[in-house]
C-alpha cells in the first residue's frame, strides 16, 4: 500500500488512486498513415521492467486528475510524481 503524493492534492493513501498503465505513450496524430506494425507498437506494446518505470495514475477518488509517476517496480519506491505534459525530475 503506497502513499502517493498527488501533484494537486498532496500525500494520500493508495486506495484513492487508480493505475493507468505506462506513461509517455502519445497517441499518434495521424494513425491512418501508420503501418499495421507501427500502429500495433502504439496500441499493444508496453514495457514491464524491473526497476524504474514511468506510469500514469489517476486520483480517481480525489481530484480526478491524471498525473505521472516514476516508480521502482522492484521495491515500490516512488521517485517522483509530475503533471501530465511535464518531464520527470531525475
Amino acid at each position, binding site marked *: 500500500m503506497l502513499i502517493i503524493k498527488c501533484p494537486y492534492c498532496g500525500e494520500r493513501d493508495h486506495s484513492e488512486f487508480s493505475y493507468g498503465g505506462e506513461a509517455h505513450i502519445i497517441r499518434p496524430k495521424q494513425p491512418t498513415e501508420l503501418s499495421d506494425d507501427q500502429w500495433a507498437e502504439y496500441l499493444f506494446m508496453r514495457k514491464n521492467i524491473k526497476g524504474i518505470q514511468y506510469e500514469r495514475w489517476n486520483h480517481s477518488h480525489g481530484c480526478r486528475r491524471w498525473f505521472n509517476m516514476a516508480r521502482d517496480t522492484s521495491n*515500490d519506491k516512488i521517485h517522483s510524481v509530475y503533471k501530465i505534459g511535464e518531464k520527470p525530475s531525475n
Partner: protein
Amino acid sequence: MSNNYRLSTGGQISRSEPILFKFNGKTFRGFKGDTLASALLSNGIHLVGRSFKYHRPRGIFTSGVEEPNALVQIIKDQGKTDPNLRATQIEIYEGLNATSQNCWPSVKFDFGSINNFFSPIIPAGFYYKTFMWPASFWEKVYEYFIRKAAGLGKSPTKKDPDIYDHSYHHCEVLIVGAGPAGLVAAKVAANAGKKVLLVDERPNFGGNLNFSNSDYNKINGLKPLEWIKKTCLELQNNKNIKILNRTSVAAYHNYNYLIMVQNLTDHLSDKNKIGKIRQRLWKVRAKKVILATGSIERPMIFDCNDRPGIMLSSAVRKYINTYGVKCGNNISIFSNNDDAYETAITLHNKGVKIKSIIDIREKSDGTLPKKCIELGIKIHWKSAVIYTEGYKKINKIHVMQLSKDNSSVIGRKLKIDCDLLCVSGGYTPAVHLFTQSGGKLDYDEKKHYFFPTKNTLSQISIGSCNGTFGLKNIISESQEKTREFLNIKEVEQLSVLEPKSGDFENIWLLPSNKISGKTKSFVDYQNDSTANDIKLALREGFKSIEHVKRYTTTGMATDQGKIANMHALGIISEITNTKLGELGTTTFRPPYSPITFGALVGRNVGQFFDITRKTPIHDWHEKNNAKFEDVGQWKRAWYYPSEKENMHDSVQRESKAARTSAGILDASTLGKIDIQGSDASEFLNRIYTNAWGKLAIGKCRYGLMLNDDGMVYDDGVTTRLDENHYIMTTTTGGAATVMGKLEDFLQTEWPELKVYLTSVTDHFATISVCGPNSKKILEKVTQSIDYSDSNFPHMSFKNGLIDKIKCRVMRISFTGELSYEINVQANYGQSVWKKCMAAGKEYGITPYGTEAMHLLRAEKGFIIVGQETDGTVTPVDLQMDWIVSKKKYDFIGKRSLYRSDTMREDRKQYVGLLTNDPKEILEEGAQIVAEVKNKPPMNMIGHVTSSYYSPNLNKSIALAVVKNGKNLKGKKLYVPMPNKTIEVIVSDTIFLDKEGKRLNA
C-alpha cells in the same frame, strides 16, 4: 497423587477470583489471569490434542503464540464455535467451554492413532504419491477420507453474531512489542514528545522479563516486575502515547502500513461480552516503526521429542512465575545454553525437584550453571537426550554422552525417571514482521540465527528480534538506537544487573544410537513432519528450501513454523553441506498469527456488503410488486408479475402492451454526462465513430464508442441542447468507466480542447413512455410542447414544463415504437411517473421492466453492449458499418478497423436465428455448429447472445454471433444441447418492422 499443581503462593493471577471452565466436557477450576494452558497444567493436564498425521498424543509445549500442539476448539452456542485457537493464549473466563481437536472418539483414546503404527508407510509426500490414481477417485474417495482424517478444527455452521470493527490510525512512531526493549523505546520516544503507538499481543506488558528470576535481573535496582509496573505507569500517564494490549500485528506492508488485530472481549465472560465489539482491525500508517518483537525459544530435535510433558524451558519458567503453576514434580532439563539454568534455579527455589540437567556443552562459565552446581543439581555435561518413554505423558528419558565432534553418542545409556522435560535450544529472533516489510536477513554462523540487516523503510529492530540478547545489551541498544532513530539528544541512563552468561552451542539434529529411519525426531509438531521426512525429500531430489517445505509440509501448519522452521533449515544445511546464509529462509507471509474473517470483514456484512443504488422511483416499483435485478450497483425493476403470473407470463404481457398501447419504463439508471465547452462538438467527433459536426441544436443522435483497438465499448444517444452543450447517455453499467475514459482523453491526449464533463446520472430521473398511445399520454402530462411530427420528429428534443417542473423530453426509441423519454430533476421523478401512470390509465399504460425492454429491442435487433458484444466485436462485426464514418480523418478506434485481423471476412458476425419449431427457445450462451458430430468436440462457429419468445411475432427469436455469419443468411445451423440438437436458420437481425414505420405510428 494430587492433581493440584498450583503453588500456594506466587504468580500474577488473582487468587480471590476463581473461575470454572469446561475442557472436553469436564469442569475445572482456574483463576482470573490464567490462560487455558496454565489452568489445565494447574490441574495436572498435559495431554490436550492429537497430532495431525499420526494422531500421536501431544501436550502443551509453549506459553504463547508459537504453540504448535495445544490447539483447541471453543464451543459457544449451537453452530457458533471458534476453531484452532491456542490454549496458551486463551484467557479463561466463567463459562469457557473448550475441546480438543483432531481426535475421535476422545483425546485419550483416539482411533486415528493407528496411523502412528503405519507411520513407516506414511512418509513425506505420501499423499502426493498414493492418491494419484484413478483420477476419478480424488473427489469422491480420497479427498473425503483425507479431510475427515486430517481435520483440524470444525468451522462454525451459523452466521457470526459478533460485532467487528475497523479503525485507522496515524502516528509518528509505532512500537511493536512491549517487552523490555519496547518499553524502553516507548519511554524514550514519548518523553521526547513523539506521538507513539505501543502495541503488544499479550494482555500484560514486559515480555519475557515478566517471568525472569528477580534475584539475578534488576533494572535501576528494581526487580523486573517492579520496573515493568513503574514504567507502564509512567507511560500510561504520558499523553503522547497510546497503548494497546491484546493487539497482534498481522501484517507489515510497504510504506509503513501495518494491519493489527485487537482482541477486545474474548477474555470476558459471556455476560460481559454482550453488545460489545469483539475485535477491532487497525490499519496503521506510521512515520517510523520500531520492531521489538522479541524471540522464540527453540526446541531440541531428538527421537520422540514430542511427548506430552516435554515443554520449552522458558514456558515452564513462565508457568511457575506468572501463574504459580509447576508443570511437573520431577523435572529434567535438556539444554544447550545458560537460559535453561534460570528455569532450574527458579523451580528449585519454589521447591520443585530438579532431577538432572543434560547439557550438550562441555562446560559453562556462566553465573547460573555455577549456582546450580552449588545447589547440588546434577548436570550431565556433553550429553544428549536420545529417546523418551511414556505414551500419554513422558516418564523416562534416555541419556548418552556425545562424541567429541557431536556426530554420535557414546558410552553407557542412562535412563532417568521424570514427569517433565524442559528443553531449551536457544532463541530465534522473531524477524517475521521485519521480513514482511521487505527487510533482508543475514545469518550469524557463530550465534546460529538469522538477524535483520538491510531494510528499505523508516524502521529499526531492537532487542532480541535484532539478535541482541542479555538484558543489559537489550536495554542499552534500545536506548541508543531509539535515540538515534528519532533524533533525540539525551536519554536517561539505566543501570542493569544480569547474570554472566556462558556460550551457546548448537546441534540442529541430535545424534542417536539408532539407525537413521528408526527415529521419530519431530521438527514440525503441528504438521507431524520429522527430520527423516526432510532427509527423504532431499534424497528424492528436492533442493530448494521452498520445495522441501511444500513436499514435507514443514512450517505450513497454522503456526507457520514458528517453532519448526529454524531446525528444518539447519538440518537441510547440514545434510546438503550448504551454509545457512546461502540457503536462506522460506518466505514469511502475513498474517503473523491467524486472524478471524470477522475482523477482516468488519462491518461490511449483510446490507453493508456493497453499495446499492436505487432510482427515485424505486419505492413505486416495490409497492407494485416489481422483481429487481442487479445491474452493477443498481437495483433495476426486472418485471412486474401480477399475483398469478410467473416471470415468462409477466414479460410477455408487458412486451405486448408496449407495442399495442403504451408501456412505461424507469430508465433513470442510464449514465448521463453533461458536456459543455466550445470544443464539445469536436470532442464528440473524436470519441464516437459517426460524425457530430452537423448535428443541429435540439436533435439527438445515436453513437457508438470504440476502444482504440477497434472494439465496441459503449453506446447511447447524445442530444445537442445548445450550441456548446450536449447531454450524453451511456449504458447503465458503463457510466463510470465512460466518464473516466473521456476525462482521460481530455486531460492527457487533448488538453487543448475546451470541454468540461460533469456526471449527472443521479441528478435526473428518466421515464420512457412508448407505444402507439404514448404521444397522447405525453400531451396530457406536459404543457407547452407541440408533439406534431413536423415540430417534434423522431430523434429530437424539447424543453417543457410539467406543472411548474422543468423537463426535457427526447423522442428517441430503444423499442422501435413511438417513444418519448422524460427527464426531470431526480426529486420529481416519482411524482412525474405517477402522473404518467394516471394519464395513461385510459390506455392501459403498463409498466415494463428490463426483461421486457431486452425482449422488445431484440425484436428490433438492437444490440446491448455487453450482451451482443464482449470486447472482441467491432462495429463491422455487428454489421453496423453505417455508423462508422469513412469521411472523418480519425476517431478513437478507427485505425484498428483496418488491421488485417479486424478486416478478416470470417470473423464472428452478428446475425439473427430462427428455430424450426417456433416454440423452441434457444439458451443464451449456447454454442452453434455447422456440422453435428456424435459427441464433442465439435467445431464451434459461434454462440447465442440473446434469445426470447416474442409475443408480438408469436415465435422464438434469437441473436447470435457466428463466423462468417454475414454470408450465411438462410443457411441451416445447429445448436447441440445436452439431450437434443436444435436446428436453426440464420436470419436478419431485425425481426419486426424493418421499415421503421412504428416509430411514427
